[in-house]
């Protein structure tokens, strides 16, 4: 018997539903996965960056990560570097606590010991933002061991010794080392001389910060420099007005009732502009600003 050949037509009714079923199930599978992920993310809302960095904390050190990265240590260091930036940015915008910053940079530089940008950025942020100048020096010394011909690292170590630790002798030694290395900036020998003279003026400090600013393309580091220059401006202004108030006291045996009195009596040319938009005032015997320390950005 010859079988009748019929053209294949699209199935209708239950047959069609059966063909569509796998497709529907697949789509629902993805929808389910999407919903689950949303629930996951909801449990730690706003903490994604923090969670990414916290993963690194489970590792005792970069020495563990080094073999785990097989032969991709430098690429792994880039991943950790990106997380370090996330961590820094997150805390800069929120609580300004940088408890793990040193640990993260230790991992980055352990994975890629030649990553000069990581030492440079890590040391400056550790010293100023995390207020850990000793850890910053340790990081730089580690970098100097791995990169003995790089001038940037001893320069940064000298800078931290000069500006934060006020150890002008050590600062001079580090600047001297930096100035003798190949391709060193001319400024390094200038700072070596300044350290010997122990000239700790505001102008010198400002010049040094501007040198750090010029040394990098790193936007976060440049922002940090600008913040520090503003802090310097505030300190310099307060210092200037305090000296005028002390002279006023020495001659009249009382402090002025208000700062404008210093201008009126010729002790001060004018009241400087407060860099954060606040107002200077005098209370008891000291000049202050209305901007609290936490809002000086």
């Amino acid at each position, binding site marked *: 018997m010859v079988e009748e050949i019929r053209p294949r037509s699209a199935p209708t009714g239950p047959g069609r539903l059966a063909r569509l079923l796998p497709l529907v199930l697949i789509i629902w599978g993805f929808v389910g996965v999407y919903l689950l992920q949303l629930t996951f993310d909801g449990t730690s809302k706003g903490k994604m960056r923090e969670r990414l960095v916290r993963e690194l904390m489970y590792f005792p050190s970069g020495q563990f990560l080094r073999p785990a990265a*097989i032969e991709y240590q430098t690429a792994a260091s*880039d991943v950790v570097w*990106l997380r370090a930036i996330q961590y820094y940015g997150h805390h800069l915008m929120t609580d300004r606590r940088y408890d793990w910053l040193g640990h993260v940079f230790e991992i980055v530089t352990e994975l890629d010991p*030649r990553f000069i*940008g*990581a030492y440079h950025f890590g040391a400056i942020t550790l010293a100023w933002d995390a207020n850990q100048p000793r850890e910053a020096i340790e990081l730089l010394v580690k970098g100097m061991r791995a990169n003995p011909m790089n001038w940037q690292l001893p320069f940064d170590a000298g800078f931290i010794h000069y500006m934060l630790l006020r150890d002008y002798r050590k600062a001079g030694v580090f600047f001297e080392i930096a100035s003798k290395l190949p391709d060193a900036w001319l400024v390094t020998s200038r700072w070596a001389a300044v350290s010997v003279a122990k000239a700790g003026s505001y102008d010198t400090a400002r010049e040094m910060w501007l040198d750090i600013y010029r040394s990098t*393309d790193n*936007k*976060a580091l440049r922002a940090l420099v600008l913040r520090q220059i503003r802090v310097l401006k505030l300190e310099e202004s307060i210092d200037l007005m305090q000296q005028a108030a002390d002279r006023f006291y020495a001659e009249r045996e009382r402090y002025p009732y208000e700062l404008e009195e210093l201008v009126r009596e010729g002790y001060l040319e004018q009241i400087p502009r407060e860099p954060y938009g606040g107002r200077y005032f005098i209370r008891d015997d000291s000049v202050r600003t209305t901007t609290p320390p936490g809002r000086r950005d």
Partner: protein
Amino acid sequence: MLRRVIGIAHNTFREAIRDKVFLTLIVFAILVMGSARVVQPLTLGEGSKVMKDIGLAAITFFSVLIAVLVGGRLVYKEVEKRTVFIILAKPVRRWEFILGKYLGLMTVLVASLGVMTAGFYLIMFITGTPASAYLLWALLMTCFELAIVTATAVLFSTFVTPVASAVFTFAIYVVGHLTRDLRLLAAMSPSPVVKFVSQLLYYVLPNLSNFNIRGEVVHGVVLNPQTLVLAAGYAVLYTATLLLISTFVFGRKDF
């Protein structure tokens, strides 16, 4: 003799180049390199380093995958499909067969490395990353590393299934980068047995970290020519030894 080896290599090359796995991996490698462009704005002035690191790592990783996946079924496939009987029925010696297969795959790998490198330099050019020919030294060392990984894959391919061969070769690749830790273990362990076994494994297993100079070239560190020559010598000798073992194992098979 040389004509027969070249003939087998030529056939292997033609077969492997048509392999979908091979083409897919090259596309993936170029995609990964391109992805570095996405993260570049987040790298705070380190975009050039990140681009080079990721590019070189992607080229190496995907080349190793090609060697492991394609190499793992190189000989086994011939045996399974029984095409090996036809080849060996002709005046082809077994070592010529192994060497031809190996050289064919190595040609594929060098060609794919060339394609990926061209893609890498093109991406660097498009993204304005300063590219230098100095990076090619790292890729040359990757070729040496691939020579050993491929020889390992060919060896396993002579006596185990493709899946097992891929797993074993990849394991050797990972361990090959950790052999320095074995030496450290030998130095630190108080047990003479552990010391002996660790030392033995350190010298017997391929020391693939000899070929990793990517960090140096990305940071522009001056390379020691002696390192390059020694690495080349190590790769040639180790590969030759592995191919000899492969020939021996393959020779004992009863066809």
